């Protein structure tokens, strides 16, 4: 089910200026564009890790930020599942404790069944007792996704989740993302600079360059931006 997503805001950081004016209904919004175009900044703005100048961020019926109404939900109450490009798995916890970190802090949303479904979906059962430093790139990626998913997020924010993986691993992780999209019905904002990946996953694409939207439209037939 497509979800209404509003990303309409201004972020100023030093000389960098990022402007978004998106109001779309989608399951997966892909942010596409070269390095430094502001893709990660969009994700971190949604996650509440950047201070915005003004605007609105809404996911479904939840308002995360609305400068007009004085709403700026703190990061820990936004219910976003953010998987940063560097993954940032907690080094002092094993795989299980990493994954459960978000589940524990979300007493109303997480359930044992939900957790079981996520672990099965990402085939993580064999790794639960491992140290995160002993995992391969693809395994780390799946742990980071599971950790974000166990918070029962209202949106999943993925920052180039396949870029660090080799071709074989990409081919194995991409189906997981499709299953998350189709089976868990969690909307995603997905950052990538790989067009094939975007085509495989997203139903809406926003192309950024230098902090501005240069195109915005359905994934298969990109159209001119509004």
């Amino acid at each position, binding site marked *: 089910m497509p979800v209404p997503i509003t990303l309409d805001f201004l972020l100023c950081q030093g000389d960098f200026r990022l402007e978004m004016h998106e109001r779309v209904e989608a399951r997966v919004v892909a942010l596409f564009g070269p390095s430094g175009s502001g893709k990660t900044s969009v994700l971190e703005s949604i996650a509440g890790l950047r201070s915005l100048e003004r605007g609105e961020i809404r996911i479904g019926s939840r308002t995360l930020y609305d400068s007009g109404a004085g709403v700026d939900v703190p*990061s*820990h109450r936004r*219910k*976003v*599942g953010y998987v940063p490009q560097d993954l*940032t798995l*907690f080094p002092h916890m094993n795989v299980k404790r990493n994954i459960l970190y978000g589940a524990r802090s*979300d007493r109303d949303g997480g359930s044992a069944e939900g957790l079981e479904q996520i672990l099965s979906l990402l085939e993580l059962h064999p790794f639960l007792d491992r140290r995160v430093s002993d995992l391969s790139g693809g395994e780390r990626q799946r742990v980071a996704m599971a*950790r974000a998913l166990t918070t029962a997020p209202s949106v999943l924010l993925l920052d180039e989740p396949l870029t660090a993986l080799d071709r074989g691993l990409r081919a194995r992780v991409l189906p997981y993302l499709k299953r998350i999209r189709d089976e868990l019905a969690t909307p995603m904002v997905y950052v990538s600079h790989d067009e094939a990946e975007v085509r495989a996953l997203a139903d809406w694409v926003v192309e950024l360059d230098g902090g501005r939207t240069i195109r915005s439209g359905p994934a298969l037939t990109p159209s001119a931006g509004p």
Partner: protein
Amino acid sequence: MTGDALAIAWRTVSLASLATLVMLPPGIALAWIFARRQFPGRAMLETLVSLPLVMPPVATGLMLIWVFGRRGPLGGPLSQLGIDVMFTWRAVVLAGAVMGLPLLVRAARAGFEQVDRRYEEIAGTLGASPRRVFLTISLPLAKRGVLAGALLGFSRALGEFGATIMVAGALPSTRTIAVAIYSYTETGQEAAATTMLAVSASIAFGALLLSNRFASSA
């Protein structure tokens, strides 16, 4: 070792341990604040905390007498509650905690500064409140710095003399190793002084060795 020396060594180690426990909560809080927060008056607070490092310990002791003496702003109310601080074991703990605090804060602060903020941010996005982020991410990741600081603070409390003799005197009930070495030497009991010296050196050596281990692998 005589019974007297054993009793003094035991008293010193237990009171220094207690002083370490007393300095840990404010020490960890101050270390985290200095590593993570900017606020007006921060430089003043940092200087104040470090003051016992550079002031003569007897001067620190005198300040403690002003504050915790029976007519002091804290000692007065405590005395009315029936808690006397000066010239009791509590004064030994107090002197050790105040003198050890700056060392704890410095090492623990370095520990917190080494924690990548990214972990704290991501823990926040996973729904952890700032308090939970501190307890489950910042503190465990800064653990080695905090432990190294606690051992340094403990070592400082263990050898504390100047402030201790001001606030606790050299009474049989408050006498620590450092104070005993001074008293024995003053009264010509050289063998006893030498025994206390050996005990003091062994304990301090062990504590420092552990502290360096924690610091180097932090």
